[in-house]
């Protein structure tokens, strides 16, 4: 065994509950997933949208090229303006310009609507779309189309809104998952904790953790149960040990009768109970006559046999509820409780005398006829406390002894 003391377990100042931990963990994971998928979708969407926007610009430029073609042939700015008119109604076009074959601007149009997000426009449409206007295979001019962000802004707005919605769903989902986890994980843990707490606080060693659904926790529960089994075994052993010790402390080893200490305790209890009830009880003080002589004549083993026989006969004569103790070498005492009108202590004393008078077979093969002197004291007639009662009973016993000697 290691004699070194184990260092005290360090305690963490602030604690978090498992549910909070799980909730935070879930939120993190879900947020990450949502952000990742959202970003992917947004990127894919933006790429696709950019493709469409490019295509849109290109188609607009083609349409413009078709519209302004005769105007360029006839070098007619007014007609070119008219040719561009259908394009000015297409959303997402910021600026149009028509150049003739030598690169001089013929007409130009700028959208009256302000660009909602110039930065987006710079990212998506850094250059104008230029389409060469051809007539019979030769270039007669160029049309340039600048896009703006008005069509994209809706998508971005929608994307952001969807992202926000996802975030909300994430939050709710996290709460739901955390609840679920609380049910699945925290509940069994709590069960284990409850059992441990009960055992520690109320010494309920019979408590056991119920089988749990989660394998790891079930193993933990099983280990705790095994530990409790051991504890219960120790506890039982200790209790029986303690009972033996207590019995030893309160009983006489020879006759197995309660000893003086146990008698004092019993007497106090009986006085208390009789006082509370207003009832009566009797004390019989029994002393063996000429016991010293028996001891001397037949030896200590015979004396012990006589004492054992005496105690056995006294116990035989007692009724249920009466209490007998050996309080000295050859002194016994009996508490007769309750003492009702029919039960007379003197009668009981007579019965004890009769029973004791039967011959006792000694270890040496001889027989011995024992005799006892008995003094009776009654509560509350002869005293209201232990000392007074004992003194009274002792005195009565001596009186009885003198009488029997004179007999």
């Amino acid at each position: 065994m290691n004699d070194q003391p184990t260092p005290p377990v360090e305690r963490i100042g602030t604690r978090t509950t498992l549910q909070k931990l799980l909730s935070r963990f879930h939120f993190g994971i879900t947020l990450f997933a949502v952000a990742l998928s959202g970003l992917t979708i947004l990127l894919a969407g933006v790429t696709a949208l950019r493709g469409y926007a490019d295509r849109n610009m290109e188609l607009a430029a083609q349409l413009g090229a078709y519209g302004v073609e005769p105007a360029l042939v006839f070098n007619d700015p007014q007609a070119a303006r008219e040719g561009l008119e259908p394009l000015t109604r297409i959303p997402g076009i910021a600026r149009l310009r028509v150049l003739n074959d030598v690169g001089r601007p013929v007409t130009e149009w700028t959208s009256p609507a302000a660009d909602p997000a110039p930065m987006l426009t710079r990212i998506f449409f850094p250059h104008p779309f230029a389409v060469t206007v051809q007539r019979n295979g030769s270039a007669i001019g160029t049309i340039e189309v600048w896009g703006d962000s008005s069509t994209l802004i809706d998508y971005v707005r929608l994307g952001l809104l969807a992202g926000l919605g996802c975030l909300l769903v994430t939050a709710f989902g996290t709460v739901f998952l955390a609840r679920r986890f609380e049910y699945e994980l925290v509940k069994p843990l709590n069960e284990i904790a409850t059992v441990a707490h009960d055992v520690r606080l109320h010494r309920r060693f019979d408590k056991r953790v119920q089988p749990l659904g989660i394998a790891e926790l079930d193993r933990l529960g099983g280990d705790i149960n095994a530990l409790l089994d051991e504890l219960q075994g120790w506890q039982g052993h200790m209790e029986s040990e303690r009972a033996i010790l207590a019995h030893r402390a309160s009983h006489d080893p020879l006759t197995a009768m309660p000893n003086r200490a146990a008698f004092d305790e019993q007497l106090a209890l009986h006085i208390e109970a009789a006082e509370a009830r207003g009832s009566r009880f009797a004390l019989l003080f029994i002393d063996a006559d000429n016991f010293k002589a028996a001891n001397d004549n037949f030896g200590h083993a015979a004396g012990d046999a006589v004492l054992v026989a005496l105690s056995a006969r006294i116990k035989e004569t007692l009724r249920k509820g009466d209490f007998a103790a050996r309080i000295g070498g050859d002194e016994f005492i009996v508490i007769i409780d309750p003492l009702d009108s029919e039960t007379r202590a003197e009668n009981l004393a007579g019965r004890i005398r009769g029973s004791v008078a039967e011959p006792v077979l000694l270890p040496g093969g001889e027989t011995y006829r024992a005799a006892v002197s008995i003094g009776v004291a009654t509560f509350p007639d002869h005293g209201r406390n232990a000392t007074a009662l004992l003194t009274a009973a002792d005195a009565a016993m001596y009186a009885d002894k003198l009488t029997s000697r004179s007999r």
Partner: protein
Amino acid sequence: MLASLFLIGTLFATPPMSAQAASQTVVEDDAGGMTRAVNRMVGGIVSYARWPDAAPASGRIMCVVGTPRLTDRMTPDLPGPGAITVRQTTAAAVTPECDILFLGRMPVGDRRQLIAWVRGRPILTITDDDAACLYGAMFCLNSRAASLSFSVNLDAIGRGPLRIDPRVLRIGRGEGGA
């Protein structure tokens, strides 16, 4: 579609009023500016015409009758490759071989006779001597200040088998068109 409906509509309504001046070609302010502008405009008009035989505009024969007012060097400038053969002729010598008739200044009787003869034939008629475009030529060139314009006579186009690109009709019809 709308343009052709408009054509049919104008056919029965007020024939003289269906021609309007609109196109405003800028003429460069030098010696050959007007000639270049006229040739470019005539070439452009010819390139937007479709003959029933579906052959391209290049190689067509243009017969010039009378004296053109706006230029004395009539060489239509077709956009893209190819050119138009130009023949100077008289009203009496006009044959169906001509794909395009350019009517310069000429006696009113000759003009009326030529317009009547053209009716129903796949011949494009252009004039520069009818600013209001009232005498039956399909396209009428008109010079004003430092600009050149053309008008379209939708009745005349509607009567003939030639098809003109509606974009050109739109330019020739000016603003407020369909």
